[in-house]
Protein backbone atom coordinates (compact mmCIF):
# COMPACT_ATOMS: atom_id res chain seq x y z
CA UNK A 1 0.00 0.00 0.00
CA UNK A 2 3.01 2.28 0.12
CA UNK A 3 3.41 4.98 -2.47
CA UNK A 4 6.92 4.88 -3.83
CA UNK A 5 7.70 8.57 -3.48
CA UNK A 6 11.27 8.10 -4.64
CA UNK A 7 10.08 7.38 -8.17
CA UNK A 8 8.64 10.85 -8.54
CA UNK A 9 10.71 13.22 -10.58
CA UNK A 10 10.32 16.91 -11.23
CA UNK A 11 10.25 16.57 -15.02
CA UNK A 12 7.22 14.34 -14.70
CA UNK A 13 5.46 16.88 -12.55
CA UNK A 14 6.26 19.67 -14.96
CA UNK A 15 5.12 17.56 -17.89
CA UNK A 16 1.84 16.92 -16.16
CA UNK A 17 1.35 20.53 -15.33
CA UNK A 18 2.10 21.84 -18.78
CA UNK A 19 0.55 19.04 -20.82
CA UNK A 20 -1.66 20.69 -23.43
CA UNK A 21 -5.30 19.78 -23.32
CA UNK A 22 -6.19 18.76 -26.85
CA UNK A 23 -8.57 21.26 -28.43
CA UNK A 24 -9.29 22.88 -25.07
CA UNK A 25 -10.13 26.56 -25.00
CA UNK A 26 -8.06 26.80 -21.84
CA UNK A 27 -5.00 26.49 -24.11
CA UNK A 28 -6.26 28.30 -27.22
CA UNK A 29 -3.73 30.70 -28.71
CA UNK A 30 -5.62 33.63 -30.25
CA UNK A 31 -4.16 35.14 -33.43
CA UNK A 32 -5.16 38.63 -32.26
CA UNK A 33 -2.73 38.69 -29.33
CA UNK A 34 0.59 40.52 -29.92
CA UNK A 35 3.50 38.12 -29.42
CA UNK A 36 7.21 38.20 -28.87
CA UNK A 37 9.55 36.32 -31.19
CA UNK A 38 9.30 33.20 -29.01
CA UNK A 39 5.54 33.10 -29.46
CA UNK A 40 4.64 34.20 -25.95
CA UNK A 41 2.07 36.98 -25.47
CA UNK A 42 3.80 40.35 -25.52
CA UNK A 43 2.55 41.67 -22.20
CA UNK A 44 4.27 45.03 -22.64
CA UNK A 45 2.79 45.76 -26.07
CA UNK A 46 0.73 48.97 -26.30
CA UNK A 47 -2.65 49.04 -24.61
CA UNK A 48 -5.61 48.38 -26.92
CA UNK A 49 -8.05 51.29 -27.18
CA UNK A 50 -11.74 51.64 -27.94
CA UNK A 51 -13.17 53.65 -30.84
CA UNK A 52 -13.63 56.49 -28.34
CA UNK A 53 -9.92 56.36 -27.49
CA UNK A 54 -10.30 54.89 -24.00
CA UNK A 55 -8.18 51.95 -22.85
CA UNK A 56 -10.06 48.71 -23.49
CA UNK A 57 -9.91 46.60 -20.32
CA UNK A 58 -11.48 43.59 -22.03
CA UNK A 59 -9.66 40.34 -21.35
CA UNK A 60 -9.16 37.42 -18.98
CA UNK A 61 -7.22 38.54 -15.91
CA UNK A 62 -5.84 37.18 -12.70
CA UNK A 63 -4.42 39.18 -9.83
CA UNK A 64 -0.83 38.57 -8.80
CA UNK A 65 -0.22 37.75 -5.13
CA UNK A 66 0.88 40.54 -2.80
CA UNK A 67 0.91 41.21 0.93
CA UNK A 68 -2.69 42.41 0.56
CA UNK A 69 -4.01 39.34 -1.23
CA UNK A 70 -4.81 37.49 1.97
CA UNK A 71 -4.85 40.49 4.30
CA UNK A 72 -6.28 43.70 2.84
CA UNK A 73 -5.71 45.42 6.21
CA UNK A 74 -1.96 44.71 6.17
CA UNK A 75 -1.13 48.42 6.17
CA UNK A 76 -3.60 49.44 8.90
CA UNK A 77 -2.42 50.12 12.44
CA UNK A 78 -4.16 48.08 15.15
CA UNK A 79 -6.05 51.13 16.50
CA UNK A 80 -7.45 51.85 13.03
CA UNK A 81 -9.45 48.64 13.12
CA UNK A 82 -12.41 48.90 15.50
CA UNK A 83 -12.24 46.40 18.36
CA UNK A 84 -15.20 44.32 17.17
CA UNK A 85 -13.70 44.04 13.70
CA UNK A 86 -10.25 43.14 15.05
CA UNK A 87 -11.84 40.52 17.28
CA UNK A 88 -13.85 39.12 14.36
CA UNK A 89 -10.66 38.75 12.34
CA UNK A 90 -8.82 37.13 15.27
CA UNK A 91 -11.67 34.70 15.80
CA UNK A 92 -11.90 34.00 12.11
CA UNK A 93 -8.16 33.35 11.87
CA UNK A 94 -8.27 31.04 14.86
CA UNK A 95 -11.23 29.16 13.39
CA UNK A 96 -10.96 29.78 9.69
CA UNK A 97 -9.41 26.50 8.94
CA UNK A 98 -12.25 24.76 10.69
CA UNK A 99 -15.15 26.93 9.65
CA UNK A 100 -17.81 24.69 8.18
CA UNK A 101 -20.30 27.53 7.78
CA UNK A 102 -18.19 29.79 5.55
CA UNK A 103 -20.22 31.07 2.56
CA UNK A 104 -17.91 29.25 0.19
CA UNK A 105 -18.54 25.89 1.88
CA UNK A 106 -22.22 26.51 1.18
CA UNK A 107 -21.47 27.30 -2.48
CA UNK A 108 -22.13 31.01 -1.87
CA UNK A 109 -20.08 33.87 -3.39
CA UNK A 110 -16.84 35.44 -2.18
CA UNK A 111 -18.23 38.97 -2.03
CA UNK A 112 -15.88 41.91 -2.56
CA UNK A 113 -12.75 39.72 -2.47
CA UNK A 114 -13.85 37.95 -5.67
CA UNK A 115 -11.20 39.82 -7.64
CA UNK A 116 -8.33 38.20 -5.73
CA UNK A 117 -6.77 35.01 -6.93
CA UNK A 118 -9.27 33.58 -9.36
CA UNK A 119 -9.68 34.23 -13.05
CA UNK A 120 -12.05 36.96 -14.06
CA UNK A 121 -12.97 38.37 -17.43
CA UNK A 122 -13.79 41.97 -18.21
CA UNK A 123 -16.01 42.67 -21.20
CA UNK A 124 -16.11 46.39 -21.94
CA UNK A 125 -18.73 48.32 -23.87
CA UNK A 126 -19.35 52.08 -23.92
CA UNK A 127 -22.13 51.91 -21.32
CA UNK A 128 -21.18 48.94 -19.16
CA UNK A 129 -18.21 46.80 -18.13
CA UNK A 130 -19.13 43.27 -17.17
CA UNK A 131 -16.90 41.36 -14.76
CA UNK A 132 -17.30 37.61 -15.08
CA UNK A 133 -15.86 35.62 -12.19
CA UNK A 134 -15.20 31.96 -12.91
CA UNK A 135 -15.21 30.49 -9.43
CA UNK A 136 -17.67 30.95 -7.96
CA UNK A 137 -19.62 31.89 -11.06
CA UNK A 138 -20.60 35.48 -10.39
CA UNK A 139 -21.01 38.51 -12.55
CA UNK A 140 -20.66 42.16 -11.69
CA UNK A 141 -21.83 45.05 -13.83
CA UNK A 142 -20.10 48.40 -13.75
CA UNK A 143 -22.54 50.85 -15.32
CA UNK A 144 -20.77 53.68 -17.12
CA UNK A 145 -23.87 55.38 -18.58
CA UNK A 146 -23.82 58.25 -16.11
CA UNK A 147 -26.25 56.88 -13.55
CA UNK A 148 -25.63 57.25 -9.81
CA UNK A 149 -25.40 54.46 -7.24
CA UNK A 150 -28.85 53.38 -6.06
CA UNK A 151 -30.07 54.72 -2.72
CA UNK A 152 -30.81 52.06 -0.12
CA UNK A 153 -30.46 49.12 -2.53
CA UNK A 154 -31.25 45.56 -1.59
CA UNK A 155 -27.89 44.35 -0.18
CA UNK A 156 -26.07 41.99 -2.54
CA UNK A 157 -22.95 39.82 -2.54
CA UNK A 158 -20.92 41.84 -5.04
CA UNK A 159 -22.65 45.19 -4.52
CA UNK A 160 -23.70 47.76 -7.11
CA UNK A 161 -21.10 49.53 -9.22
CA UNK A 162 -20.96 52.65 -11.39
CA UNK A 163 -17.92 53.89 -13.24
CA UNK A 164 -16.55 56.92 -15.06
CA UNK A 165 -13.33 57.72 -16.85
CA UNK A 166 -10.77 60.18 -15.50
CA UNK A 167 -8.32 60.33 -18.40
CA UNK A 168 -7.11 56.79 -18.94
CA UNK A 169 -8.25 55.64 -15.49
CA UNK A 170 -11.60 53.96 -14.94
CA UNK A 171 -12.96 54.98 -11.54
CA UNK A 172 -15.50 52.52 -10.14
CA UNK A 173 -17.60 53.21 -7.06
CA UNK A 174 -19.46 50.37 -5.36
CA UNK A 175 -21.93 50.12 -2.49
CA UNK A 176 -24.91 48.04 -1.45
CA UNK A 177 -22.98 45.00 -0.21
CA UNK A 178 -24.47 42.52 2.21
CA UNK A 179 -22.43 41.78 5.36
CA UNK A 180 -22.21 38.02 4.89
CA UNK A 181 -18.68 37.92 3.51
CA UNK A 182 -15.28 39.11 4.65
CA UNK A 183 -12.89 41.44 2.86
CA UNK A 184 -10.12 38.85 2.83
CA UNK A 185 -8.88 35.43 3.89
CA UNK A 186 -7.80 36.91 7.25
CA UNK A 187 -11.49 37.36 7.97
CA UNK A 188 -11.60 41.16 8.17
CA UNK A 189 -15.33 41.85 8.33
CA UNK A 190 -17.35 44.54 6.64
CA UNK A 191 -20.77 46.03 7.20
CA UNK A 192 -23.57 46.89 4.81
CA UNK A 193 -22.17 50.42 4.91
CA UNK A 194 -19.04 49.38 3.01
CA UNK A 195 -18.12 51.53 0.03
CA UNK A 196 -15.34 50.58 -2.34
CA UNK A 197 -13.64 52.82 -4.88
CA UNK A 198 -11.49 51.11 -7.49
CA UNK A 199 -9.22 52.87 -9.95
CA UNK A 200 -8.34 50.66 -12.93
CA UNK A 201 -5.45 51.52 -15.21
CA UNK A 202 -4.17 49.36 -18.04
CA UNK A 203 -0.66 50.73 -18.63
CA UNK A 204 0.20 48.16 -21.31
CA UNK A 205 -1.24 45.14 -23.04
CA UNK A 206 -0.66 42.66 -20.25
CA UNK A 207 -1.24 44.46 -16.97
CA UNK A 208 -4.06 45.99 -15.01
CA UNK A 209 -3.13 48.20 -12.07
CA UNK A 210 -5.90 48.48 -9.53
CA UNK A 211 -6.09 50.83 -6.56
CA UNK A 212 -8.78 49.76 -4.14
CA UNK A 213 -10.05 52.09 -1.40
CA UNK A 214 -12.16 50.58 1.37
CA UNK A 215 -14.43 52.87 3.38
CA UNK A 216 -16.49 51.26 6.12
CA UNK A 217 -16.77 53.68 9.07
CA UNK A 218 -18.66 51.21 11.26
CA UNK A 219 -15.69 48.80 11.16
CA UNK A 220 -12.56 50.83 10.34
CA UNK A 221 -11.59 54.27 11.61
CA UNK A 222 -10.37 55.58 8.28
CA UNK A 223 -10.63 54.73 4.60
CA UNK A 224 -7.52 53.04 3.26
CA UNK A 225 -6.14 52.13 -0.12
CA UNK A 226 -4.37 49.02 -1.33
CA UNK A 227 -2.89 48.25 -4.71
CA UNK A 228 -3.21 45.12 -6.78
CA UNK A 229 -1.87 44.12 -10.16
CA UNK A 230 -3.65 41.73 -12.48
CA UNK A 231 -1.91 40.03 -15.36
CA UNK A 232 -3.63 39.24 -18.63
CA UNK A 233 -4.18 35.54 -19.36
CA UNK A 234 -4.65 35.84 -23.12
CA UNK A 235 -4.20 32.13 -23.92
CA UNK A 236 -6.97 30.73 -21.75
CA UNK A 237 -10.72 31.13 -21.39
CA UNK A 238 -13.18 31.00 -18.53
CA UNK A 239 -14.90 27.70 -17.85
CA UNK A 240 -18.26 26.94 -16.29
CA UNK A 241 -18.33 26.37 -12.55
CA UNK A 242 -21.58 25.17 -11.03
CA UNK A 243 -20.73 24.63 -7.40
CA UNK A 244 -23.55 22.28 -6.48
CA UNK A 245 -23.29 19.78 -9.33
CA UNK A 246 -21.04 17.32 -7.45
CA UNK A 247 -21.00 18.65 -3.90
CA UNK A 248 -19.95 15.74 -1.67
CA UNK A 249 -18.40 17.54 1.30
CA UNK A 250 -21.13 19.35 3.18
CA UNK A 251 -22.38 16.25 5.00
CA UNK A 252 -18.86 15.50 6.23
CA UNK A 253 -17.69 18.84 7.63
CA UNK A 254 -16.75 18.16 11.24
CA UNK A 255 -15.09 21.45 12.14
CA UNK A 256 -12.51 21.75 14.87
CA UNK A 257 -12.11 18.65 17.03
CA UNK A 258 -11.52 18.76 20.79
CA UNK A 259 -8.02 17.41 20.19
CA UNK A 260 -7.25 20.30 17.84
CA UNK A 261 -8.83 22.89 20.11
CA UNK A 262 -6.80 21.66 23.06
CA UNK A 263 -3.41 22.26 21.47
CA UNK A 264 -1.96 25.19 23.41
CA UNK A 265 1.62 26.20 22.72
CA UNK A 266 3.15 28.97 24.85
CA UNK A 267 4.26 32.07 22.94
CA UNK A 268 7.78 31.51 24.32
CA UNK A 269 8.02 28.44 22.10
CA UNK A 270 7.12 30.54 19.04
CA UNK A 271 10.08 32.84 19.73
CA UNK A 272 12.36 29.82 19.55
CA UNK A 273 11.26 29.11 15.97
CA UNK A 274 11.44 32.67 14.62
CA UNK A 275 14.25 32.97 12.11
CA UNK A 276 15.34 32.42 8.55
CA UNK A 277 15.55 28.95 7.05
CA UNK A 278 17.35 28.30 3.78
CA UNK A 279 16.04 25.82 1.22
CA UNK A 280 18.71 26.64 -1.34
CA UNK A 281 20.85 29.74 -1.88
CA UNK A 282 18.51 32.70 -2.23
CA UNK A 283 15.39 30.71 -1.39
CA UNK A 284 14.30 31.11 2.19
CA UNK A 285 11.43 30.47 4.52
CA UNK A 286 11.01 33.25 7.08
CA UNK A 287 9.32 32.50 10.40
CA UNK A 288 8.32 35.38 12.67
CA UNK A 289 6.08 36.21 15.62
CA UNK A 290 3.44 38.96 15.40
CA UNK A 291 1.16 39.63 18.39
CA UNK A 292 1.83 36.18 19.88
CA UNK A 293 1.00 34.61 16.52
CA UNK A 294 3.56 32.49 14.68
CA UNK A 295 3.77 33.60 11.03
CA UNK A 296 5.50 32.19 7.98
CA UNK A 297 6.51 33.55 4.61
CA UNK A 298 7.29 30.56 2.41
CA UNK A 299 6.53 32.15 -0.95
CA UNK A 300 9.36 34.71 -1.06
CA UNK A 301 7.13 37.58 0.01
CA UNK A 302 4.57 37.04 -2.73
CA UNK A 303 1.70 36.54 -0.28
CA UNK A 304 3.04 38.28 2.82
CA UNK A 305 3.18 36.67 6.26
CA UNK A 306 0.73 33.83 6.74
CA UNK A 307 -0.44 32.64 10.19
CA UNK A 308 0.65 29.23 11.44
CA UNK A 309 -1.51 27.23 13.78
CA UNK A 310 -0.10 24.70 16.22
CA UNK A 311 -1.06 21.05 15.98
CA UNK A 312 1.64 20.20 18.54
CA UNK A 313 4.68 21.94 20.04
CA UNK A 314 6.66 21.21 16.86
CA UNK A 315 4.06 20.88 14.08
CA UNK A 316 2.24 23.85 12.61
CA UNK A 317 -0.23 24.21 9.77
CA UNK A 318 -0.88 27.04 7.37
CA UNK A 319 -4.51 27.25 8.24
CA UNK A 320 -6.06 29.56 5.72
CA UNK A 321 -8.89 27.78 3.98
CA UNK A 322 -8.30 29.97 0.95
CA UNK A 323 -4.95 28.29 0.34
CA UNK A 324 -6.38 24.80 0.04
CA UNK A 325 -4.73 21.78 1.65
CA UNK A 326 -2.61 23.13 4.46
CA UNK A 327 1.14 23.21 4.18
CA UNK A 328 2.72 21.70 7.30
CA UNK A 329 5.83 23.02 9.02
CA UNK A 330 7.69 20.84 11.49
CA UNK A 331 10.58 22.22 13.53
CA UNK A 332 13.57 20.11 14.60
CA UNK A 333 15.75 20.82 17.60
CA UNK A 334 19.25 19.50 18.44
CA UNK A 335 20.23 17.98 21.79
CA UNK A 336 21.02 21.41 23.25
CA UNK A 337 17.57 22.73 22.42
CA UNK A 338 18.52 24.82 19.38
CA UNK A 339 16.19 24.77 16.40
CA UNK A 340 18.32 23.57 13.48
CA UNK A 341 15.97 23.01 10.59
CA UNK A 342 12.38 22.70 9.52
CA UNK A 343 10.52 20.43 7.18
CA UNK A 344 7.92 21.98 4.91
CA UNK A 345 5.34 19.54 3.65
CA UNK A 346 3.78 21.29 0.68
CA UNK A 347 0.08 21.14 -0.03
CA UNK A 348 0.92 18.62 -2.73
CA UNK A 349 2.43 16.38 -0.06
CA UNK A 350 6.13 16.79 -0.84
CA UNK A 351 8.69 17.44 1.88
CA UNK A 352 11.25 20.17 1.67
CA UNK A 353 14.04 20.67 4.21
CA UNK A 354 15.15 24.18 5.15
CA UNK A 355 18.21 24.73 7.34
CA UNK A 356 18.22 27.54 9.84
CA UNK A 357 20.65 30.30 8.92
CA UNK A 358 19.59 32.96 11.43
Amino acid at each position, binding site marked *: *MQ*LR*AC*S*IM*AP*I*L*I*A*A*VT*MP*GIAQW*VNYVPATVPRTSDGKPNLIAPVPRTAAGKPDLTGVWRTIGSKY*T*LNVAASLKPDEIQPWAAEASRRSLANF*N*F*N*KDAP*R*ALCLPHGP*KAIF*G*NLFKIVQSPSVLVFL*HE*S*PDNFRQVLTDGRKLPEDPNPSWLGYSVGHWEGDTLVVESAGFNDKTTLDAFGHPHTEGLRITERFRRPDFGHLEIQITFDDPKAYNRPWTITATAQLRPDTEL*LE*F*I*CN*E*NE*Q*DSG*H*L*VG*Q*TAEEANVKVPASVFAKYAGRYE*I*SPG*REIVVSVEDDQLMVDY*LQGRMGNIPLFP*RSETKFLV*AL*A*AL*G*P*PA*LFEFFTDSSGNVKHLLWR*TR*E*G*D*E*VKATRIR
Partner: protein
Amino acid sequence: MHSRITIPILASLVAVAVVTTPLSAHHSFAAEFDALKRVNFTGVVTKVDWGNPHVWFFVDVKDEVTGTVTNWGAELGGPNILIRNGWSRHTLKIGMVVSFAGSLAKDGTHRVNASRIVVDGKRLDAASSEGAGR
Protein backbone atom coordinates in the same frame (compact mmCIF):
# COMPACT_ATOMS: atom_id res chain seq x y z
CA MET B 1 7.52 9.48 6.13
CA HIS B 2 8.02 10.36 2.50
CA SER B 3 11.48 10.43 1.11
CA ARG B 4 13.10 13.83 0.95
CA ILE B 5 13.00 15.59 -2.33
CA THR B 6 16.04 17.26 -3.72
CA ILE B 7 16.60 20.91 -4.41
CA PRO B 8 16.26 20.91 -8.22
CA ILE B 9 12.84 19.35 -7.81
CA LEU B 10 11.94 21.88 -5.19
CA ALA B 11 12.40 24.81 -7.52
CA SER B 12 9.72 23.47 -9.80
CA LEU B 13 7.41 22.72 -6.90
CA VAL B 14 7.71 26.21 -5.54
CA ALA B 15 7.17 27.66 -8.97
CA VAL B 16 4.04 25.61 -9.40
CA ALA B 17 2.79 26.60 -5.95
CA VAL B 18 3.26 30.26 -6.68
CA VAL B 19 1.80 30.19 -10.13
CA THR B 20 -1.25 28.22 -9.21
CA THR B 21 -2.15 29.31 -5.68
CA PRO B 22 -5.85 30.06 -5.99
CA LEU B 23 -7.97 31.72 -3.37
CA SER B 24 -10.99 29.66 -3.78
CA ALA B 25 -11.03 26.65 -1.55
CA HIS B 26 -14.58 25.43 -1.76
CA HIS B 27 -14.66 24.19 1.79
CA SER B 28 -12.20 24.44 4.61
CA PHE B 29 -9.83 21.50 4.26
CA ALA B 30 -9.43 21.17 8.02
CA ALA B 31 -13.16 21.14 8.67
CA GLU B 32 -13.20 17.79 6.92
CA PHE B 33 -9.68 16.27 6.87
CA ASP B 34 -6.82 15.92 9.32
CA ALA B 35 -3.56 16.97 7.69
CA LEU B 36 -1.59 15.02 10.31
CA LYS B 37 -3.30 11.72 9.62
CA ARG B 38 -1.67 10.67 6.37
CA VAL B 39 -2.11 7.50 4.41
CA ASN B 40 -0.60 6.09 1.22
CA PHE B 41 -2.76 3.97 -1.03
CA THR B 42 -2.50 2.01 -4.24
CA GLY B 43 -5.81 0.76 -5.53
CA VAL B 44 -8.07 0.08 -8.48
CA VAL B 45 -10.43 2.83 -9.62
CA THR B 46 -14.11 1.83 -9.22
CA LYS B 47 -15.85 5.15 -9.90
CA VAL B 48 -15.05 8.72 -10.96
CA ASP B 49 -17.39 11.61 -10.09
CA TRP B 50 -16.09 14.35 -12.36
CA GLY B 51 -17.76 17.62 -11.38
CA ASN B 52 -17.67 20.84 -9.41
CA PRO B 53 -16.71 21.90 -6.85
CA HIS B 54 -14.45 18.83 -6.46
CA VAL B 55 -13.75 15.73 -8.45
CA TRP B 56 -14.00 12.53 -6.42
CA PHE B 57 -12.64 9.15 -7.41
CA PHE B 58 -13.14 5.87 -5.62
CA VAL B 59 -10.67 3.01 -5.37
CA ASP B 60 -10.67 -0.51 -4.01
CA VAL B 61 -7.66 -0.82 -1.74
CA LYS B 62 -6.49 -4.23 -0.55
CA ASP B 63 -4.90 -4.52 2.87
CA GLU B 64 -1.83 -6.62 2.20
CA VAL B 65 -1.84 -8.05 5.70
CA THR B 66 -5.49 -9.07 6.11
CA GLY B 67 -6.52 -9.26 2.46
CA THR B 68 -9.55 -7.10 3.19
CA VAL B 69 -10.63 -4.82 0.34
CA THR B 70 -11.99 -1.39 1.27
CA ASN B 71 -13.46 1.18 -1.08
CA TRP B 72 -12.02 4.64 -0.45
CA GLY B 73 -13.21 8.00 -1.79
CA ALA B 74 -10.51 10.50 -2.71
CA GLU B 75 -11.05 14.20 -3.28
CA LEU B 76 -9.29 16.28 -5.93
CA GLY B 77 -9.64 19.91 -6.95
CA GLY B 78 -12.38 21.01 -9.30
CA PRO B 79 -12.53 20.09 -12.98
CA ASN B 80 -11.45 23.53 -14.18
CA ILE B 81 -8.26 23.60 -12.16
CA LEU B 82 -7.52 19.99 -13.12
CA ILE B 83 -8.11 20.68 -16.81
CA ARG B 84 -5.72 23.62 -16.62
CA ASN B 85 -3.19 21.25 -15.01
CA GLY B 86 -3.39 18.81 -17.89
CA TRP B 87 -6.14 16.50 -16.70
CA SER B 88 -9.31 15.60 -18.55
CA ARG B 89 -12.38 13.65 -17.51
CA HIS B 90 -10.72 10.67 -19.22
CA THR B 91 -7.51 10.76 -17.15
CA LEU B 92 -8.86 8.42 -14.49
CA LYS B 93 -10.70 5.37 -15.76
CA ILE B 94 -12.46 2.52 -14.00
CA GLY B 95 -10.07 -0.39 -13.56
CA MET B 96 -6.96 1.77 -13.60
CA VAL B 97 -4.36 1.36 -10.84
CA VAL B 98 -3.69 4.62 -9.02
CA SER B 99 -1.26 5.45 -6.23
CA PHE B 100 -1.76 8.45 -4.02
CA ALA B 101 -1.24 9.94 -0.59
CA GLY B 102 -4.02 11.48 1.39
CA SER B 103 -5.25 13.08 4.57
CA LEU B 104 -7.96 11.12 6.37
CA ALA B 105 -11.49 12.38 6.91
CA LYS B 106 -12.20 13.41 10.48
CA ASP B 107 -15.63 11.79 10.57
CA GLY B 108 -14.15 8.31 10.28
CA THR B 109 -15.61 7.58 6.85
CA HIS B 110 -13.40 6.07 4.15
CA ARG B 111 -12.54 9.37 2.52
CA VAL B 112 -9.30 11.22 1.96
CA ASN B 113 -8.14 14.43 0.40
CA ALA B 114 -5.71 13.14 -2.21
CA SER B 115 -2.28 14.34 -3.28
CA ARG B 116 0.85 12.88 -4.93
CA ILE B 117 -1.24 11.06 -7.48
CA VAL B 118 0.59 8.71 -9.80
CA VAL B 119 -1.24 7.38 -12.84
CA ASP B 120 0.52 5.27 -15.48
CA GLY B 121 3.85 6.16 -13.90
CA LYS B 122 3.16 9.87 -14.21
CA ARG B 123 2.60 12.21 -11.34
CA LEU B 124 -0.35 14.59 -11.65
CA ASP B 125 -1.02 17.75 -9.67
CA ALA B 126 -4.07 16.84 -7.60
CA ALA B 127 -5.17 20.41 -6.94
CA SER B 128 -6.70 18.91 -3.83
CA SER B 129 -9.46 20.70 -2.01
CA GLU B 130 -9.07 23.77 -4.11
CA GLY B 131 -11.80 25.57 -5.87
CA ALA B 132 -12.10 25.14 -9.56
CA GLY B 133 -11.16 28.53 -10.79
CA ARG B 134 -7.83 29.79 -11.84
